[in-house]
């Protein structure tokens, strides 16, 4: 589906004759080349997982966090250029705090998603700025229940039951569609997300990876936090077993 936009791809303020802005599409490519990031909305909360590709054996496990808490009730998982992601997270945190100070209540997830999307879109309007090279999965739990949003480098933001970005997004989306999310609790969801990430991980192309997961659900008292260690280990074990069963066929 990719085409070379010779001549029309030099600036984010240039349209091509067929109405595309190539710089934004190239930014999306940066996202597609990163490790898979998944988010699902279960009946009692949101679960997010990241396939963190390990660049070097010298990296300390647990460092380079890809999932960040934006406020007590919401968190963001970032795919693509990590440094760009840090900027967006900082902006989201600042929006959330200002909203709370001004209006006296936590920012509704819908409002937060709109502000993040606005900010990402802003950087596609001026020639002296480049688009953000990252895709965001935003999960939060507010008065209207758990909600999951995805923001793309173009600034588009939609609300989802399940979303995936990065290398294995096609395969991941297929797997997510098989799940019965409306009946699933977050506890079960954590296991499923781990299984999907292990499944879509390409052993041939990428060597090692680290699984990072977070949730915000009734069990976590509607606070966004890392999935508890024993549950994470349980999920990893289940995922590995599922992979072996598949290989054994």
């Amino acid at each position, binding site marked *: 589906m990719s085409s070379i936009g010779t001549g029309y791809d030099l600036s984010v303020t240039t349209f091509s004759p067929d109405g595309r802005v190539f710089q934004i599409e190239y930014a999306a490519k940066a996202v597609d080349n990163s490790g898979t990031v998944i988010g699902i909305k279960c009946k009692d909360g949101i679960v997010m997982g990241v396939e963190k590709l390990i660049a070097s054996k010298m990296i300390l496990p647990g460092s380079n966090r890809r999932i960040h808490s934006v406020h007590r009730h919401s968190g963001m998982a970032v795919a693509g250029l990590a440094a760009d992601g840090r900027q967006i997270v900082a902006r989201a945190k600042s929006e959330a705090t200002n909203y709370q100070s*001004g*209006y*006296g*209540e936590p920012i*509704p997830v*819908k*409002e937060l998603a*709109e502000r993040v999307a606005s900010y990402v879109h802003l950087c596609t309007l001026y020639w002296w700025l480049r688009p953000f090279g990252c895709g965001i999965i935003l999960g939060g739990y507010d*008065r209207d229940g758990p909600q999951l949003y995805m923001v793309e480098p173009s600034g588009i933001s939609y609300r989802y039951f399940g979303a995936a970005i990065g290398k294995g997004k096609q395969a991941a989306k297929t797997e997510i569609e098989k799940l019965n999310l409306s009946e699933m609790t977050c506890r079960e969801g954590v296991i499923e997300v781990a299984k999907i990430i292990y499944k879509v991980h390409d052993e041939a192309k990428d060597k090692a990876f680290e699984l990072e997961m977070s949730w915000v659900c009734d069990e976590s008292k509607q606070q966004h936090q890392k999935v508890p260690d024993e549950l994470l280990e349980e999920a990893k074990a289940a995922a590995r077993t599922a992979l072996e069963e598949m290989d054994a066929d």
Partner: protein
Amino acid sequence: MDLNMDLNAPHSMGTTIIGVTYNGGVVLGADSRTSTGMYVANRASDKITQLTDNVYVCRSGSAADSQLVSDYVRYFLHQHTIQLGQPATVKVAANLIRLISYNNKNMLETGLIVGGWDKYEGGKIYGIPLGGTLIEQPFAIGGSGSSYLYGFFDQAWKEGMTKDEAEQLVVKAVSLAIARDGASGGVVRTVVINSEGVTRNFYPGDKLQLWHEELEPQNSLLDILNSPSPEPMNI
């Protein structure tokens, strides 16, 4: 009596204002006297002001200050409602009022009671007295007339009243305060807010119940001069 009345004194609302929650919503009540020193500048003012479709505020203290604060908050809430895509919550309205009251405390003199209904919390009352504290209460009283109502509410207030009980309580309380507080008077206005909407009611001052030592209104003998019926003194 002081004949040198200061007609240029700032308009202050001596006032009695009340906000009460009941099972299903809130009832706000107020008197209607606005005074400039000893002179009653407006004997039928409306101290219960709309902020949004579902949130109203009772104003006391300086008339100008309370009107300005209400106007600002109405403006911010309007924008907030558009952005949010749904009605603002009572808490947000109260918080905006509080921020203005607190951050400008050196310049403002106004005590406010915010009351309304939203789909998340139901009926709520928030009191925001002079310094800019924000306090959520099952009922709140304010203004100069409220001094006479603390004991009354301690005794008469109960949780989970019906709409009619709550409204009768509010009317009775404002009426008692008007009887004792010189800076409160006129009519009693109430606003009832619940899931179905907003209802305004009006209780004329001369139809209010008489309290201890208050005299029945007597017709003046001068009425004979104005009456259309035949002259009583026929020669």
